[in-house]
């Protein structure tokens, strides 16, 4: 497994450099923290507004929806920390030809492109999100079980895999549509829908979020694991979805990369 070991060494070196660089911008940390707290507040007020007019949202009680909201925020934090600064830059690299410099390196291109940069301050979003989930869980009056925690850990990992696969898929499209610079806006738009349990949507949208753009698997399923709504077979399905999504996106990446002919020159 020297390939993986070498990759880890490369990664450590990148992140160390990255960390030293970010330390110079500590003011950004406060700003990003304030921003996260503000948007979390807006999100909670939105949920509170819905609950002024209904006792349940798609069969979920108030605090259960807040548990889900925390998970949404944690996943959004993963996107901001790793995906946007990393693979989110792919369309620019493809257009400018900077991808050349990636392809000549002795590490896997997808791996390098995906994890080359960390916006470390945004890790606070992950921490705040999970803290909110924990708080809401306590408020909901449920008791925690080992099975629920394990199921949550597994399905949360699946959620990260699915989100990552969606980003790889979207960004790979940059090889075909070179002029499209705002591919990530497409993700931002649709991912907003994952703020609420998928059962809160009408049938057509639900179908869309479960099967076509699989964001239902990113927040609803881990939140279901915590709030006792997940049966073992659904957990297995989720793992299947995660593996298939990763595999399919890897396949698309390889097909897409073959189209790359560099720029300029």
């Amino acid at each position, binding site marked *: 497994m020297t390939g993986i070991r070498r990759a880890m060494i490369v990664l450590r070196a990148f992140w160390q450099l990255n960390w030293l660089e970010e330390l110079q911008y500590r003011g950004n940390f406060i700003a990003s923290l304030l921003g996260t707290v503000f*948007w979390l507040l807006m999100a909670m007020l939105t949920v509170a507004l819905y609950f002024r007019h209904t006792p349940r949202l798609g069969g979920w009680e108030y605090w259960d929806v807040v548990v889900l909201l925390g998970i949404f925020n944690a996943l959004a934090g993963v996107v901001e920390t790793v995906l946007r600064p990393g693979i989110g830059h792919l369309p620019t690299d493809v257009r400018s030809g900077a991808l050349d410099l990636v392809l000549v390196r002795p590490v896997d291109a997808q791996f390098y492109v995906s994890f080359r940069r960390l916006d470390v301050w945004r890790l606070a979003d992950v921490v705040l999100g999970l803290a909110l989930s924990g708080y809401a869980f306590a408020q909901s009056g449920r008791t925690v079980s080992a099975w629920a925690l394990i199921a949550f850990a597994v399905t949360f990992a699946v959620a990260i895999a699915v989100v990552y696969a969606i980003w790889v898929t979207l960004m790979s499209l940059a090889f075909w549509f070179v002029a499209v610079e*705002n591919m990530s806006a497409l993700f931002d*738009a*649709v991912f907003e829908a994952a703020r609420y349990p998928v059962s809160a949507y009408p049938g057509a949208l639900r179908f869309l979020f479960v099967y076509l753009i699989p964001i239902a698997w990113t927040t609803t399923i881990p939140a279901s694991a915590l709030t006792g709504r997940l049966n073992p077979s659904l957990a297995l399905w989720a793992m299947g979805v995660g593996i298939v999504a990763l595999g399919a996106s890897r396949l698309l990446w390889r097909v897409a990369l073959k189209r790359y002919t560099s720029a300029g020159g």
Partner: protein
Amino acid sequence: MSRVATRSAFATFRDQYAELMRSAFLIDLQYRASIAIWLLWGITEPIISLGIWWSIAAGGAVDGYTREDFARYFFGVALVNQATLSWDAWNIDRWIREGEMNFRLTRPIAPIHEAIADNIAYKAPTAVIILTAWIGAATFWPAVRIPFEPGRWALAIIAIVLAAAIRFLNGYATGLLAFWTTRATALVELQFGLSLFLSGRIAPLSLLPPQVVRAAEYLWFPYVLSFPVEVLTGTVTTGGQYARGFGGQAIWLAIWLLLYLLVWTRGRRRYGAVGG
């Protein structure tokens, strides 16, 4: 006497505008796919809100809003939001940070006119696209049909244009704070967050707690989205409601115009170019 000499200042100004709009439109045409994505990005928020309210209203009307009312309301939000979007603060931020403001300052026409032309060239065609989609949807989905009242539609168009002007000046003036701070766009985002509720993006204003609505009416937020939408969908009916709505729009248009002029004249004096 040559023709050039008799040209009025107005004619020159009009031609400059036409040229700015033409070039902005041609640039947009180059980025058709990107614009399609921004359009999609713009309509997902109202679609999500509609989806949630549609489910909540399954058991009957919510404070007088039936499912069909929600559908019309959020179709209206999608249209008016597209026509009144404001992104200029991010441009200004970049112009000032990277020195692109410099050549704009040397032009015989203030940079705001380029932004206005840019806005018109983008919003007019994309709003028509949303309107066409709405008409298409209305042919097979009766819920989103709005009554045929040309007089009301004309008033709605005026309200939308005024809303676009207020939101534009609001975003532009806030963006110009970049002359003083590097976090001007954060102030725009703050307003964007508040507008979720105060402008009626997430729900019709009448579903909010009454104290919040009363507070909102002292600000510009309801007049840039909620009011034009409710004129369009027929929620605004009495003369008093019209007067309050258009009156609020007139006042806030004047306030933001003055604030823009203030920030622009002060900021320009303060500006020290980047680079070179």
